[in-house]
């Protein structure tokens, strides 16, 4: 039984959508159930996802030129990996633009700490319960969130030097 089927039978109401495009199993879940599903993934012996491989976000503003409308602007994407069973799972959480907040995973997997800081820095999504949510790649004086689609690529905010 693949990981996707296992969580589908456990959390049938929480999973909005799922697919396995090009062999990557993906589940899109409701934001409120992230912690419950994450704990289940970590603690069930036959899933045993002990690696949080990656945690990132995607901004779907004006996706596909506006032809495809997604309900929520952001999506937090987590990749899980199990060392023992050698299987992977991708879990996506749609985040609304007006309240960009989701629960933290840093107490379950310490690796989530820095990944969540990067998502806050680049996208502006807050993580409830994160011990130290501050910018990691940009400097503190930087205004805005750089990887959002409405931040122009060459809008500079220099600290020293000419302001062009």
């Amino acid at each position, binding site marked *: 039984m693949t990981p996707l089927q296992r969580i589908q039978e456990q959390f049938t109401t929480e999973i909005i959508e799922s697919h396995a495009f*090009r062999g990557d199993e993906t589940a899109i879940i409701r934001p409120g159930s992230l912690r419950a599903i994450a704990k289940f993934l970590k603690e069930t012996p036959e899933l045993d996802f002990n*690696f949080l*491989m990656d945690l*990132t976000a995607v901004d779907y503003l004006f996706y596909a030129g506006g032809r495809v409308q997604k309900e929520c602007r952001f999506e937090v994407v987590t990749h899980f990996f199990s*060392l023992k069973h050698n299987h992977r799972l991708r879990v996506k959480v749609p985040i609304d633009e007006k309240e960009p907040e989701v629960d933290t995973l840093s107490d379950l*997997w310490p690796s989530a*700490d820095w990944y969540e800081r990067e998502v806050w820095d680049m996208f502006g999504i807050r993580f409830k319960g994160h011990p130290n949510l501050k910018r990691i*790649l940009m400097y503190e004086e930087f205004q805005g969130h750089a990887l959002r689609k409405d931040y122009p*690529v060459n809008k500079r905010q220099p600290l020293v030097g000419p302001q062009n």
Partner: protein
Amino acid sequence: MLLNVGPSHPAMHGVIRMIMELDGEKIKGVDIEIGYLHRAFEKMCETVMYTQCFPYTDRLNYVSPLINNVGFALAVEKLLGIDIPERAKYIRVIMSEISRVTDHLTCVGASAMELGAMSVFLYMIKAREFLYELVEEITGARLTISYVRIGGVKADLTAGFVDKAFAKIAEVRKVLIEADELLTRNRIFFDRMKDIGKISQEDAIAYGVTGPFLRSTGVAYDVRKASPYLIYDKLDFEVPVGSTGDNLDRYFVRMAEMEQSLRIIEQCFQQIPDGAVAADLTGVVIPAAQMVDSAKMGQTESLIEDEVNLDPTLQGSTRKFHDAINANKKDVVLPAKENTYGNIEGLMNHFKLVMYGHGIHPPMGEVYFPVEGANGELGFYIVSDGRDQPWRVRVHPPCFPIMAALPKCLIGDMMADLVPTFGSVNMIAGELDR
């Protein structure tokens, strides 16, 4: 006492800032600040076409640029759902393994130099120069090569490359033996690396660490064995594993991995299928400029069969090599230059792939593809919306979780132990900050 090990510091590893909380000489806490080399790789990739992302991927882990190129190409090929010819796969593996050896040489050499072993550094950079000569012969550049293309590679191996490669590999092996003699049983090196920078297996897994750092703690996880890509399942190599997770184990793991990479390269040369399809060479061999001129003037009768004499630096990318090293997909792979200049179909094919608005159009969707980088699992997560430019390119940098776990390794050690531990992390700022 708070001590700032500032962004610009002598260890030639890149820019990072560590604020250390010291109690005398013992480290009580470390706060690491990164982002000093943030070059907006992910944002730049959203503004250019897929093939134009390759130069940006070179500069991620700049000591092993070919592995980054291969990882990105494999991710896009997974998204497109295409497969590449066998020979191209073997060439990609050979170049990846050469890159892995250059990375480990730089890491071990630089960390040895910081402990005072200057000669080892010079020997390892000498060995790295031998490998750079090999890379330069095939790709044209030493460091930032942009060699891999979606659907294949840019040019085939040159004639006589195999013998040169075997000779250089023998030289690199000699250097490895010399370095081993100088370092492994050296009292000073041993004392400074043994039991320093220890991390336990549970902590390493909890922090999501992969690569030599994880293998030194005893976990035999290597992406090439766990989810083999390209032709790694046909090759016979071992994955060296340490036991204690200290600096010395990481040094041993890297030295052993270099030997295994050299073995892989030799096996590839024995197994690689033949290259140039000596097709319909009925025509005369003409210089390339003459072909372009006659095509522009409309004298195209014999250009379908003619073989072109290119500059030696462009060897390996002519029509007869093209099918062996590129997938047979006209909507993804640029045609050979003789076809671009010689007939109208090639010209239109070239235009459709190069002009803005046209280009490679993967289906809408997302993929994640992990490859084994020199520091661990290098993953590319690409989201496509059907256009010729990627919607989102995310790199999972192998040294990001390692740097997050670094405070755990350092606490309890002395101030001077920062240098060997940080050296064995092999932090590459281009990859960490992107």
